[in-house]
């Protein structure tokens, strides 16, 4: 198990729109996914971490979490750009264009999006000099 996060799930009241968004954005990061019953989707695996999207279990509408961000690790700077472009082309909303970010000692490239529901996401590549 890598890191501290096993999985993240987000709710969606429009699974088709959310799945189109996450199919495109996870493909840009090189992370495969699979669908279940047309309304649930799952990306990654339990070795690297998993991401799930589907309708809320309580039958109520999905809502987005103000103040929250799900941070995704990108394999390189190009993937950050591809992730943002894929999201914008599939129902996402721009929250920060791809580019260098000065958040620490290491050079990084990041981008921000909201998914079709409004959940805030970012993708970051950190240049560790490897």
């Amino acid at each position, binding site marked *: 198990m890598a890191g501290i996060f096993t999985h993240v799930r987000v709710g969606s009241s429009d699974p088709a729109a959310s799945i189109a968004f996450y199919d495109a954005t996870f493909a840009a990061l090189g992370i495969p996914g699979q669908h279940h019953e047309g309304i649930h989707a799952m990306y990654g695996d339990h070795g690297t971490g998993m991401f799930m999207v589907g309708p809320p279990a309580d039958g109520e509408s999905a809502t987005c979490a103000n103040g929250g961000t799900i941070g995704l*690790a990108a394999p390189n700077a190009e993937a950050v750009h591809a992730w943002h472009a894929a999201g914008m082309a599939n129902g996402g909303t721009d929250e920060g264009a791809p580019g260098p970010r000065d958040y620490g000692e290491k050079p990084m490239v990041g981008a921000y999006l909201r998914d079709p529901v409004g959940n805030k996401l970012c993708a970051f590549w950190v240049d560790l000099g490897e």
Partner: protein
Amino acid sequence: MYSHMMVGSNDLEKAKTFYDAVFTAIGGKPGITDPKGRLVYLHNGGIFLVTKPIDGEPACVSNGSTIGFAMDSPEQADAWHAAGAAAGGTEIEDPPGMRDMNGTKLYLAYLRDPDGHKLCALYRPD
């Protein structure tokens, strides 16, 4: 897959009490407050942050969302759950225990944090 995770809070003091308890219960350290006033937890190579929303609006909970935390053992998941429940968290779902998820056995424990975010502690026996 994940670089970090951030949740919004309307009461960082309550959030610190809760998250300090759950992270120290699993061998982590209390959170530090960064220059932007955010709580930062560094644990097992991962980064978890709690912040007031930067748009000035109240924090709210994402219905249907869950954040899963990796546990080393069922006992650690129990300790996480007990510590969080005693520090402002709310016990939800079934009590901590082994679940059979379509043939995969997982030990799961669920809490909501003081702001209502749904969290899960997960131990996967291999």
